[in-house]
């Protein structure tokens, strides 16, 4: 049967593809969720309208990367999927409930009038917050390792819950706030933009603090990670990562004060990238830390081969029309231009 097994390193390629899909989800839905988290703090209702308008055409496409990340994990590394999902049953279900409240708010809010609109404001905000927080909890729980016996999860229902995962939960919330605020700097102007700029500067401090805590705590918690980062010559190769994060955060801060619009947003992506790579390197080669490697979890080569062909053909097309969609809705979001209904 058709297989690319002997031509390319399939598990390795799929590790990169899935990691990329999850990362794109974090970036793209990250700014949507960040906008939702910031929502009630905006100075006026008019600002809130613009905030929602700025992401209304995109959120659905952005959330699709989550299905690709999850569905892709199921397809390419089924063993990892079947261990992680039951292990994180509660935070994952709660995350989806948050995403439901966030998602329906887009449609319901602008159909609601008067006090009912407040319900969907709250639904949008708390939905976004809960989803972001639970994603952080999931990351925090995964990096601490998952108990496995044979081919399934062997821990309890609340193994994921501890101070560390709650900390990473808040870390992701502030990270998304930075993405959301810098997105709003790009997509809005006037009062909303000024407020978003201020919010972004506050977020920088928190993001820096959480990045520092995670960077220091991971080597302390795990001896292998300690050896990986602090042995020579690894240290020399890895030290640019945190350095780059720090430099980018400083540039974002300066750019915000210099009223630059686009660069803070792109550099926020950069900060997430360095953090993501840092965690990825620490977990390598595990997909279920610290039990199952990406090779052990890999699906049959026939399955990975078929999907690889599909991905090579379809992913550029997807990126193409996603780009077209962003291009169509370029420019500042606004509430102006009263529509007729």
């Amino acid at each position, binding site marked *: *049967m058709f297989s690319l097994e002997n031509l390319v390193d399939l598990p390795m390629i799929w590790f990169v593809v899935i990691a990329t899909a999850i990362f794109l989800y974090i970036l793209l839905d990250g700014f949507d969720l960040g906008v939702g988290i910031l929502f009630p703090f905006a100075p006026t209702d*008019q600002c809130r*309208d613009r905030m929602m*308008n700025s992401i*209304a*055409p*995109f959120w*659905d*496409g952005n959330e*699709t990367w*989550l*299905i690709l990340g*999850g*569905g*892709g994990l*199921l*397809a390419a590394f*089924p063993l990892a*999927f*079947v*261990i992680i*999902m*039951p292990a994180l*049953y509660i935070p*994952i*279900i709660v995350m*989806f409930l948050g*995403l439901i409240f966030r*998602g*329906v708010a*887009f449609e*319901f809010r*602008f*159909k*609601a*009038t008067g006090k009912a609109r407040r319900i969907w404001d709250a639904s949008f905000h708390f939905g976004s917050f809960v989803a972001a927080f639970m994603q952080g909890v999931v990351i925090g729980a995964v990096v601490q390792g998952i108990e496995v016996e044979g*081919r*399934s999860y*062997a821990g309890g229902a609340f193994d994921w819950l501890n101070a560390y995962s709650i900390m990473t939960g808040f870390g992701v919330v502030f990270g998304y706030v930075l993405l959301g605020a810098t997105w709003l700097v790009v997509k809005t102007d006037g009062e909303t933009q000024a407020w978003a700029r201020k919010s972004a500067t506050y977020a920088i401090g928190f993001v820096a603090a959480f990045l520092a805590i995670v960077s220091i705590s991971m080597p302390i918690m795990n001896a292998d990670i300690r050896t990986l980062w602090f042995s020579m010559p690894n240290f020399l190769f890895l030290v640019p990562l945190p350095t780059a994060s720090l430099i980018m955060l400083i540039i974002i801060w300066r750019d915000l004060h210099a009223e630059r619009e686009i660069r803070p947003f792109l550099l926020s992506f950069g900060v997430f990238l360095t953090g993501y790579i840092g965690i990825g390197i620490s977990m390598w080669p595990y997909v279920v830390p610290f039990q199952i490697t990406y090779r052990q979890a890999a*699906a049959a080569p*026939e*399955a990975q081969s*078929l*999907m690889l062909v*599909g*991905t090579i053909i*379809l*992913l550029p097309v997807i990126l193409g*029309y996603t780009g077209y*969609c962003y291009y*169509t*809705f370029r420019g*500042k979001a*606004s*509430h102006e*231009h*009263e*529509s*007729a*209904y």
Partner: protein
Amino acid sequence: MFENLDATFLARAQFAFTISFHILFPAFTIGLASWLAVVEWRWLKTGNQVYADVYRMWVKIFAVTFGMGVVSGVLMPFQFGTNWSRFVDAGGNIIGPLLAFEVLTAFFLEASFLGIMLFGWNRVSPKMHFASTIIVAVGTLISAFWILSVNSWMQTPQGFQVGQDGLLYPTSWLAIVFNPSFPYRFVHMVTAAYLTTAFTVAGIGAYYLWHRRHVKHARVMFGMAMIMAIFVAPLQILFGDMHGLNTFKYQPTKLAAIEGLWETQRGAPLVLFALPDQEAETNRFAVEIPKVSSLILTHSLDGEVKGLKEWPADERPPVAIVFWAFKIMVGIGTLMAATGLFALILHFKKRLFDTRWFQLWCMALTPAGFIAVLAGWFVTEVGRQPWIAQGLMRTSDATSPVIGTSIAISLTAFVVIYIFVFGAASYYILKLIGKGPESIPAAYGDHGVEKPPIVSDLVGEKGE
């Protein structure tokens, strides 16, 4: 508190609840997307403003339903892992790629072009907008293709071998994707979705006609829906029959449950009414027509039909649910075909749009499609039990290592939240229907929103 509840039962209840809720939305949006494409095409072709108004009214309803479908659907693949991890562990090599292809070929397409369809009115050319509608419609069909392929594979698995590790390995993708029940299920379900939409649109059109409101628009809705009732409803009976014969061949246990037949016999009767008793292995209060089941299934009065007793008791599905769900589905299908027949007669009598009783009839059938779709899925899913994948793995062997308490809590949360969200969606859709189509020149905001949700337009809305 929940210690006594069986985790498998709870996992099944949760999956059944969340997927039943989910399927209501695709069942409607698959048909609605295609219909909207037709309406927009008529508008571009004729320049008739009525089509534009109808499009704009229904695209708003489409947006709400599609949004509900997305938020309830994103969860579904993850539930494979949270609740059926041992099934995914064994079958991941087969179902994984099909699900991944659904995401790659359909979900991104729908999500991206939906943005243009809803908000891009003034940002792209009319042709591009029309293209976006078509792309979304095609996306819904591609999505149906893959997910029905996965489901059908679970009904009629083939194209794999069992490895030494007990896991399934693909041997032929063509055999997997185009497994024996797939073509029938795909055609039957897509047609069901089209009919669901048609009868919903017909019901609303009839409502306007009854109240003599928006008559020009209502005629478009009602007329187009009746075309579907006349031509497609009878076809669906044919497709359903073919699907049934396919089930007779590949899943005879399910078919015996559908027919409510316990004994294998030649000249099997058609059981019209019965209360199947699983324990006693018999039907109570049965009303039967002799030999008709054999005639339908084998096309011979004396053909042999296998009864449920042919299989051990622990390999039979819960008969009463399958039996009755099938009756409901077929009953509604018959009502739909009858609607088509009435519509045809009224059309030739030139009374299609002003026959009062027929408008009431169509209003009553507004939710018919949804009920039939749910009933049909209960037949096919409950009928497959006790298997998660027919003959390969039992549902009770497929569960995740998650305790019953967790599932009981999440199930309760889903029920409460879905009822709340569903209630809100229904309320807003009814409001949109109450408002009806409005004759207003194209005025989607050109800043990426169709309607800027701002306080100042609340005033405008009240003034309307």
